[in-house]
């Protein structure tokens, strides 16, 4: 009986955790990002970049808040695909949840960013 209880006490929180994994970040993503980047971050040809293969997401998560807050402005016709509207009103909690969800698009064992780091990155961006 004790054995079952201990298995249950480990498995149940794990199951809950995996079911609710970054759901808040996914919700922000669905509302603000999925129209262009696709429901799974797959992108569209070369027009809207795939987030699943994003070098910035994989190696420079500290740059993400600034890209989301300020967007990417078009500097020439050839850079059309880099045009992205700004999302200046997104707050620290939503930004942290969103980045953690985005990181799962690139790899399942992605590391987690903390709200302290994200707040600092957002402050530097401003």
């Amino acid at each position, binding site marked *: 009986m004790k054995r079952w209880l201990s298995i249950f006490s480990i498995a149940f929180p794990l199951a809950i955790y995996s079911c609710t994994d970054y759901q808040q970040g996914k919700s922000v993503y669905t509302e603000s990002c999925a*129209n*262009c980047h696709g429901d799974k971050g797959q992108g*569209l*040809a070369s*027009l809207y970049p795939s987030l699943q293969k994003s070098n910035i997401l994989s190696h420079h998560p500290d740059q993400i808040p600034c890209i989301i807050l300020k967007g990417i402005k078009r500097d020439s*016709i*050839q850079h*059309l695909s880099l045009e992205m*509207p700004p999302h200046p009103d997104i707050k620290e909690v939503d930004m942290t949840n969103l980045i953690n969800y985005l990181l799962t698009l690139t790899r399942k064992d992605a590391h987690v960013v903390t709200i302290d780091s994200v707040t600092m990155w957002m402050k530097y961006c401003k």
Partner: protein
Amino acid sequence: MNIRYISLVSSFIFILLSCQNAPQPLPYLGVKENPEDKPAIPDYHFIDQLNRPVTPQTFKDKVYLTDFFFTSCPTICPIVTGQMLRIYEHFNNDNRVAFLSHSIDTRHDSVPRLKAYADKLHINDDKWRFVTGKKDDIFSISKSYLSIVLEDPNTPGGFNHSGYIILVDKDRHIRAFCNGTDPKDVDKFIPKIQQLLDSE
């Protein structure tokens, strides 16, 4: 006697099933004064991503899929363009099918900008035309395609428009349309394109 009877009955069932499975002919859609009317898309003259004129003659002997979009649209256009691309890839090798996307942001969507947009979709410029023209002409023809296009400064991107993908036959009649923001609706739409091709 029994064998004759069984074969008669089975033939009857086969004919009945065949009739049930035969798809209904595609209707002629549009604003009609009489039920038997077949409204046709009026004449138009636009410019495509390679600065070439696009008129009804461009789609002579072809069926075409058409939509309304603009390159900086942050809302439904990316989804509709993604579904147009899906249909394009499905009929990529069929020369009887063409594509026509009208930009509704005629102020910003210049010819080079449409070319850059088309290039990033990796499409054949002869098969899929992205066009611009006089704003009034594009807004006006949207009504003939049963679509809504409105300028609205309160909407993200500045335009309010429907996300329909419209199927036009070689005689300029609208024969079907789907909601381009709904992949499941597009799933049901693709067989209708094939049905039109088979019937023409």
